[in-house]
């Protein structure tokens, strides 16, 4: 679906890229909150990395996290699927709820959580195995062994990642032979193969050229129909292009969170305005 202007009036989007699910006009978003953070603090040893973060990440849309280098964007993202657990001296206060469950509570198993909350990293990270085995990695891990089933999952994941036509004849070739952009889409396919509900992306295009970047952005727009997407980006235009909501972090504090449009056009906070207009950061 291609529109010049969506329900929230974001006519600045490039119409070639936009493809969004229908939203009811003049009504608050129907999306439920996927993640709820309430007074969330993160410490690495004595360093206080995230300070009292409170926000709700809505389902089935793209939410962007922006902010200057070292402000805690990655740390925030990695708090959502407990990828910070391995950091020595990691400690949290406050709450992160994922569909109502306390992510850092007793009842949540991080391994299970990560199957539901997938992650794609800054640099493509293909495993040293074939393209097929890369995509089949997660399903195999979780007990899927039947060849026909694996074939089906691998194909549909690669199709969803827009990579099927490129690799369908070379599935047995090493994944490391793909180009950077293709590798990144492979990593997205690999994440999709686990059938997560959320996909977290940490600067997924910063190692890619502009055309590969555009392809990933288009892909994210399509995926947002079915998945909740949270993307960390250094690229302000990218945040404006792909996201509905944007969070602005500064020194571990959430300065402002709201519709992307508002953050870029009429932010409430002076610091947000300075950042998005390029006065610092």
């Amino acid at each position, binding site marked *: 679906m291609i529109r010049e202007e969506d329900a929230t009036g974001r006519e600045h989007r490039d119409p070639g890229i936009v493809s969004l699910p229908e939203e009811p006009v003049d009504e608050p978003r129907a999306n439920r909150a996927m993640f709820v953070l309430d007074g969330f603090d993160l410490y690495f040893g004595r360093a206080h990395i995230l300070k009292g973060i409170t926000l709700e990440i809505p389902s089935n849309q793209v939410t962007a996290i922006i902010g200057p280098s070292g402000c805690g964007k990655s740390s925030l993202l990695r708090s959502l*699927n407990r*990828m910070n657990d*391995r950091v020595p001296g990691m400690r949290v206060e406050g709450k992160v709820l994922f569909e109502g469950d306390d992510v850092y509570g007793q009842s949540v198993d991080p*391994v*299970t959580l*990560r*199957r539901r909350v*997938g*992650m794609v*990293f800054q*640099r493509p*990270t293909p*495993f*040293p*195995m*074939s393209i*097929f*085995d890369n995509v089949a*990695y*997660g399903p195999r*891990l*979780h007990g899927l062994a039947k060849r026909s089933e694996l074939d089906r999952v691998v194909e549909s994941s690669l199709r969803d990642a827009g990579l099927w036509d490129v690799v369908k004849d070379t599935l*047995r070739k*090493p994944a490391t032979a793909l180009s950077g952009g293709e590798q990144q889409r492979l*990593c997205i396919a*690999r*994440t999709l193969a*686990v059938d997560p509900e959320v996909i977290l992306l940490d600067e997924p295009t910063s190692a890619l050229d502009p055309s590969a970047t555009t392809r990933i952005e288009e892909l994210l727009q399509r995926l947002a129909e079915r998945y909740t997407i949270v993307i960390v980006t250094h690229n302000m235009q990218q945040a404006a292009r792909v996201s509905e909501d944007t969070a602005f972090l500064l020194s571990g504090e959430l300065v402002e969170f709201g519709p992307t449009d508002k953050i870029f056009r009429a932010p409430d906070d002076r610091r947000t305005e300075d950042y998005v207009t390029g006065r610092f950061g």
Partner: protein
Amino acid sequence: MIAARPAEGAAGRARTGISLGRRVRHRTAVVLVWLSVAIVLLPLAHMFAMVTSHAVRALSPKLFTTSTAGVAGGLENAIVGTIQLVVLATVAAVTLGVLGGIWVREFASPRAAFPVRLAADVLAGVPSIVIGYFGYVTMVTWLGWGFSLLAGALALAVIMLPYVLRATDLAIGRVSEELRDASTALGATQAATLRRVILRSALSGIVTGALLAVGIALGETAPLLYTAGWSNYWGLLPSFTHNPVGYLTYVVWTFINQPFAEAHALAYAAAFLLMILVLLLNVVVRRVIVRHTEEAR
């Protein structure tokens, strides 16, 4: 025509665009690099040629089908003994070394890892004859195994162990955190990540270390003199203790001192076989590794 000439000259210079000084330095560097390659390769080639030319006399099927008798005969007993010793030592050293390396890198606290790494590095520097003598005192006499396959293999295993352990440790350390993160983020446990991604990526480094160790073990003489002894006989199903074993390096070391041309030829033939063995081992194992890591199972 005349006016065009200076322009051509300028264009020519612009095309190469490199000053004379830089070109000279480049040439010098290239020459030095090739010279270093030659300095390393020439003695190796010379040694190979010399050993081969002296060994030719003894190279015949008989070499593989008869055992040594005095300072003559074939090398059957020594070939079988060497293979038995090194295979047994490799099984022991690779099992312990890989597990130890995994433990040091993945599971040990820094305080526990430090002494193990230190011990491994020190052990690698201990002269092999000392390890042989230690093996003699402990296994051959105190445990009462006598000169035997087990004593010899374990002495070799002790020599190999630090190389395998440290190679495993370092190879795992070289696997990027990003790869580990990527596996973890797909819902893999630490054990699954280790088995399916980390060890797979580290495999070629681990195998390189193991091959180095096997090469060293193949070439050892001193520790075996104290532990394996020497024998003109061999058994396909070896007795692990109480029976001495023959091995190729013994032939090299002892037969070269004999005043007989036939003994010399045997010594060179043994050296030749050792070199071929190391070469084949490296080529074959590397082939397998490349296939294993690059293609689907």
